[in-house]
């Protein structure tokens, strides 16, 4: 008789265990790093700067507490369940408030559940964070297949659509008959797919990144009259996103960069930190000047990088870009169905591009909420957990009323 597995749902509790040997190996490798010469420019125009990365390496080995990941994750109820052949790891925190709205939040790359940990309190326990009990959520935070403690796909095809379908199954297994979904970055892709699949129970979705861009908006860009001058600036930023080396490499040859990301901790850190100019500048400042922006502290950044290293997921996380890129190419030929469910959107001012309301409305006809947040960038939940939680409350408020309970 099994004591831990709920046989009806196949959900079993999970705790993180990291061996001292893994940590010693990581520290030894960081200490043994063979460094390149310094970049030849005064800024980040050639990539992650040497002085910054050396300081990160120093902090990682000398000051970072390697027990943090275990302590932070194991303080939360974590589970594992097999869906569609893969073990899915997730955090599941139920609110004490009756009638809390179930919410599934999906991280992106180079993120993980680590990004989301500090929104759990404000979302599940709003009365302790200046909200009212009417704002409470039950929160489900899964690790995307190939990320963190979820297992790695062993076949191609785990694109946003398949992940979205797995999430609907997960919410179903958890007994949630009415719920909402949220995501940024790759998580926005998964949430977008869920919205279009419209599984039973999904009431609405919220995004802090407009993943529908490649699917719909670039086609619309062929009709330039829909773009104003300001929008053209934003479109330039969008195009810039897709010209990034990491997107190109991971979208084409995730296995190749995978060797670098598995074998060199500093290679992994550099690759992960080079995501976008805004977050790069903020993180560099945290390490070089000890001045953190919002919640993007040195420790929080290293929790996430250390998680990638210890779970050996550099290649498997890269593969999602390959999957996404294939799926995006296919969706140009066979556009996905329109999303009929209510959609909500928050523009964070330091995001890669600031999607105008007009674009969001173009992608999601049933737009029930649109707001520009005062602070925060690409990693909105991570950087500004309180503002992010405020946005969730406001975005989904109108959907609470129509619930059957």
């Amino acid at each position, binding site marked *: 008789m099994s004591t831990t597995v709920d046989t009806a749902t196949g959900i079993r509790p999970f705790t993180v265990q990291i061996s001292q040997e893994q940590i010693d190996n990581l520290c030894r490798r960081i200490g043994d*790093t*063979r*460094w*390149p*010469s310094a*970049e*030849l*420019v005064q800024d980040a*125009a*050639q*990539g*992650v*700067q*040497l002085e910054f*990365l050396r300081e990160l390496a120093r902090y990682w080995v000398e000051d970072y507490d390697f027990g943090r990941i275990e302590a932070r994750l194991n303080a939360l109820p974590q589970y594992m369940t097999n869906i569609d052949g893969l073990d899915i790891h997730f955090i599941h925190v139920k609110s004490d408030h009756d009638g809390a709205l179930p919410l599934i939040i999906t991280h992106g790359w180079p993120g993980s559940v680590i990004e989301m940990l500090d929104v759990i309190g404000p979302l599940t326990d709003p009365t302790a964070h200046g909200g009212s009990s009417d704002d409470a959520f039950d929160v489900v935070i899964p690790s995307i297949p190939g990320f963190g403690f979820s297992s*790695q*796909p*062993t*076949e*191609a095809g785990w694109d946003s659509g398949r992940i979205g379908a797995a999430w609907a199954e997960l919410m179903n297994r958890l007994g949630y008959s009415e719920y909402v979904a949220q995501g940024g970055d790759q998580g926005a892709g998964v949430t977008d797919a869920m919205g279009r699949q419209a599984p039973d129970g999904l009431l609405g979705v919220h995004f802090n990144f407009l993943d529908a861009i490649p699917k719909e908006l670039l086609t619309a860009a062929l009709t330039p009259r829909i773009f104003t001058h300001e929008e053209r600036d934003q479109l330039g930023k969008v195009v810039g996103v897709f*010209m*990034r*080396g*990491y997107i*190109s*490499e*991971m*979208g*084409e*040859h*995730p*296995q*190749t*960069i*995978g*060797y*670098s*990301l*598995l*074998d*060199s901790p*500093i*290679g*992994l*850190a*550099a*690759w992960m930190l*080079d995501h976008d100019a805004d977050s790069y500048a903020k993180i560099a400042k945290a390490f070089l000047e000890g001045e953190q922006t919002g919640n993007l502290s040195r420790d929080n950044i290293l929790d996430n990088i250390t998680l990638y290293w210890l779970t*050996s997921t*550099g*290649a*498997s996380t890269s*593969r999602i870009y*390959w999957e996404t890129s294939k799926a995006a190419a296919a969706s140009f030929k066979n556009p996905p169905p329109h999303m009929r469910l209510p959609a909500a959107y928050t523009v964070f001012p330091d995001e890669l591009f600031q999607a105008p309301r007009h674009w969001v409305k173009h992608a999601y006809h049933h737009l029930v909420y649109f707001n520009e947040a005062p602070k925060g960038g690409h990693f909105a939940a991570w950087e500004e957990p309180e503002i992010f939680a405020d946005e969730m409350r406001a975005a989904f408020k109108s959907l609470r009323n129509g619930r059957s309970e």
Partner: protein
Amino acid sequence: MSTTVETGTAIQPFSIEFPEEAIDDLRRRVGATRWPSKELVPDRSQGVQLATAQALARYWLDEYDFGRIEERLNALPQFVTEIDGVDVHFIHVRSRHEDALPLIMTHGWPGSVIEMIDSVGPLTDPTAHGVGAEDAFHLVLPSLPGYGFSTEPAQIGWDLDRTARAWAELMDRLGYTRYVAQGGDVGAGVTDAMSRQAPEGLIAIHTNLLVPALNGPMPTNTDEERAAAAQIATFSKSGNGYFVEMATRPQTIGYPLLDSPVSLATWMVDHDTDAYYKIASAFVDDKPSGNLTRDHILDNITLYWLTGTGASTSRSYWEAYGADAPAAAQKPLPASTIPFGFTTFPGEIWKTPRSWVEASYPNVIYFNEVDKGGHFAAWEEPELFATEIRAAFRTLREGRSS
């Protein structure tokens, strides 16, 4: 009082010696590689396959002779001379045939002088390779700045144009007043720039990669042209991640390339589909294509590792192709008017039609399409490559009517 060395223009003999600790450290790192899970596809479509990478690592550790680079390079006359602030390393082999034609050949990325050294015999000593003395070359093989034993630029601005000017200065220092130039890959870019600068003494060039096709669309009127354009499009959709990364973020990718030998090796062998499968076949099935043997591939990768040039070689893409580099803001060089020769190798990223060559260079004196060889033509098929170089420049020999 002046000593015998003229500062700035002195040419000093050079030989290589790798410290034993550097080789031990490399071997230790290869042995300690932390491998990713296997790719999810049966081909190259997700990048370098695990079986290829592991076969390469195994051979590197168990069978490769780490003395090879020293032995092969030190068997040739090598020199260093400072040009424009960089110590340029080069191999210089004079033919015993005095009226040989001086030729400067430039490698590319992920290449080095290693690619070129099996062409030295056929080019400088043709009579030992079944052809006449009148086809002899005096051969100069420089290492690009930031590559191999040339020093790394300490400032930005070492673009194709600047390297090309340095090569003209090098040939001048060597006393060559009438010479030709050749290149593929980045070396084709340097050679193309030389032809546009048209320094005194440069009488013709040959390339095995059509540089102008990288800079803008080419005609697509014929089936052959459309097929070549389609090959370029495929490359930019499915295999140019390394190009974009190095052109925009050379420092970022520099970290793993310096720190992990397997990272360096896989990044280097992922250059193009044809070369990848040939190299994979050499390691996995022990079936090399031409001269692309396991040892030759590892000579080149080991050279990159031991010289610690993963970041500095990547920066050459930033300089040549990056939007933030000074070169991006400069006016294009004038058209090339000196005699131009081209050889289409069938396995190259795109199969260049004669019409594109003629659309790109007004003074085409030689075009040929051969039946073997790919992107690393000199490396893979040194004899065939030498045959092409001889034929391309034959009409330019002094005292011969064309």
